[in-house]
């Protein structure tokens, strides 16, 4: 019994310490008192700060070359490692599986709001947190109140990917490498765009992108996939939808009868047969001609630096003749 009490006391005391420790950085780091303190070595209080504008239009003050970055967005993690800021990353989510080194960082929970552990994020004393824009708004608000700077990344276009690279380059102090990656991606995108634009109207193929299998969902205007399809010179059969990822019925798909179907792999065991065997689909042009492709979900749905790989793979699948020479050129950023 006494032992139990002791145990409780010890654990309570320990928690008390942890609590104090995790709260300390939040006591206004801008005030002179806080910046003169040297008790928290993780915060670079004596180094200068810079102000950046993130994609939600927020002005964020971040320490120059932060040493402790927590990324709560798999896309952010990929971008950070791509621009050579991987060593500054101390925390990632359980979904951050690329590049492989990222998996060795401390986990702060899942990507979704429910599974993300704010306590874990705070306990890592981040100098800055990288999030995906609007979706993470509640987390951003919370961290802001605790005076932890949060950068929100952009949406689903190549243009916003370049902006993210510039922004992260500035924030992490790796601008040079970020610009280089950005230029590489631009060149590769431009290459595909030129070939795609040269395809005569009568050879343009129609394409259905299956964003999700059950319920059946497509990619609508405003989605990254819609832009990718357009760049390759093909036509997205659901470019008239009024949502980014509309749920659609098999009927609408059969009536629009696409030339090519590209499905995002949502389960590891999923095969092309699983995609094709839905009722009524056997008469679809794409299925009769064997033009159904299954693509790694992380590659096409994460909108990080590897999205350009997805663009090239998709271009090759739609027009194998026109983009046949892409394979040897590809070098992952």
């Amino acid at each position, binding site marked *: 019994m006494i032992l139990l009490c002791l145990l409780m006391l010890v654990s309570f005391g320990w928690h008390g310490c942890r609590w104090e420790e995790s709260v300390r950085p939040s006591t206004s780091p801008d005030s002179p008192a806080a910046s003169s303190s040297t008790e928290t070595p993780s915060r670079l209080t004596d180094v200068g700060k810079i102000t950046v504008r993130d994609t939600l239009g927020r002005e964020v003050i971040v320490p120059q070359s932060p040493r402790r970055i927590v990324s709560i967005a798999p896309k952010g993690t990929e971008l950070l490692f791509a621009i050579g800021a991987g060593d500054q990353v101390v925390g990632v989510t359980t979904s951050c599986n690329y590049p492989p080194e990222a998996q060795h960082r401390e986990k702060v929970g899942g990507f979704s709001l429910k599974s993300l552990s704010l306590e874990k994020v705070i306990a890592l004393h981040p100098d800055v947190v990288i999030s995906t824009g609007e979706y993470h708004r509640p987390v951003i608000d919370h961290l802001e109140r605790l005076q932890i700077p949060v950068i929100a990344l952009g949406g689903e276009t190549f243009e916003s990917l370049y902006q993210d690279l510039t922004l992260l380059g500035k924030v992490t102090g790796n601008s040079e490498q970020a610009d280089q990656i950005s230029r590489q991606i631009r060149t590769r995108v431009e290459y595909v765009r030129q070939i795609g634009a040269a395809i005569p109207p009568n050879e343009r193929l129609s394409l259905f992108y299956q964003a999700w299998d059950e319920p059946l969902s497509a990619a609508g205007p405003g989605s990254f996939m819609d832009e990718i399809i357009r760049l390759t010179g093909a036509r997205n059969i659901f470019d008239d939808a009024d949502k980014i990822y509309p749920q659609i019925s098999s009927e609408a798909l059969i*009536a629009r009868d696409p030339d090519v179907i590209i499905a995002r792999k949502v389960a590891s065991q999923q095969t092309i047969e699983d995609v094709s065997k839905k009722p009524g689909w056997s008469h679809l042009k794409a299925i009769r001609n064997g033009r159904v492709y299954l693509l790694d979900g992380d590659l096409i749905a994460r909108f990080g630096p590897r999205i350009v790989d997805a663009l090239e793979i998709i271009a090759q699948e739609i027009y194998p003749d026109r983009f046949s020479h892409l394979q040897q050129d590809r070098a992952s950023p």
Partner: protein
Amino acid sequence: MKLWLTCLLLLILGGLMVISLGIGAVSISPIKVWQVLAGIESTTLSLSDRTIIWELRLPRTILACLVGCGLGTAGAGYQGLFRNPLADPFVIGASSGSALGATLMIVTGMQVNWLGLSAVPLAALAGSLLSVAIVYMIAVAGRDAPMLSLLLAGVAVSSFIGAVVSLLMFLNDERLVTIFGWLMGSFSGSGWSTLPTIAPLILIGITGLWLLSRPLDALSFGEEAAQGLGLRLSLLRSGVVLFTSIATAASVSAGGVIGFVGLISPHLARLIVGGRHVWVIPVSGLFGGILLVAADDLARTIVAPEELPVGVVTALLGSPFFLFLLKTRRRAWGAIT
């Protein structure tokens, strides 16, 4: 009179089913529908029209009708057995068990195919039957007042299984959309393959319940009175639970958890044919079919080319309608209690 009304309902159901073949994300004129069904060759018919009607709409409409009938009848069976106007097909755990089965399959991504059913419907069917069996065994072991303990055990087991489903959803949030979509109920993407298994099961359930009409009538006088009339209560109870669960499990397996149809249909039936189960049971089935075919038509047209889960439509329209009935026909409730 009752016969005429029943025939009228049958006509309405048939008419609705024909109409629903023409409407959807793509609308197809009645003439074309006729040409496709009658196998008439015509230059105006495209391959896609034929595919949509034969391989999507026809099996889907038949399935919606059958599931509606199954749920309507099952509702009538439980309302009769429990002598409670609030009983529905899911009252003793049929829906939570099926939800657990389906969720497990979605989460593990297991691929099975048996009797034309793929992993999710198969697990839903098994889960539904299993959970009802567990509830039944717990309740019968309790003895004292088996009807009450059936209801209580149903509630307890349902909430326990519901918690497990929530836990699975939380731990697997990447499959959340799929699980959620299934839980809300939908006929989207159903074809012919499931019908040969689902249809006989639902028909067995309906027929079995219908054969129990007279004992159910006797039960409506109260348990003591029914036993005085020579009714073997435990036999009736197990019979009703058995047939109702078969119909419900097959329905849930085919369409997911679709609420309100099973609750409302028996009330509608009693309004027009009175309280005798020999009428209430088939007419509840007809109403269930009508309601669900109509709800499915709405589900796939109001936001076309997108689709709503049919369970959302039945709940959205069903609850206000139920309240309306409650307000205007208060006296009619007397018929069952």
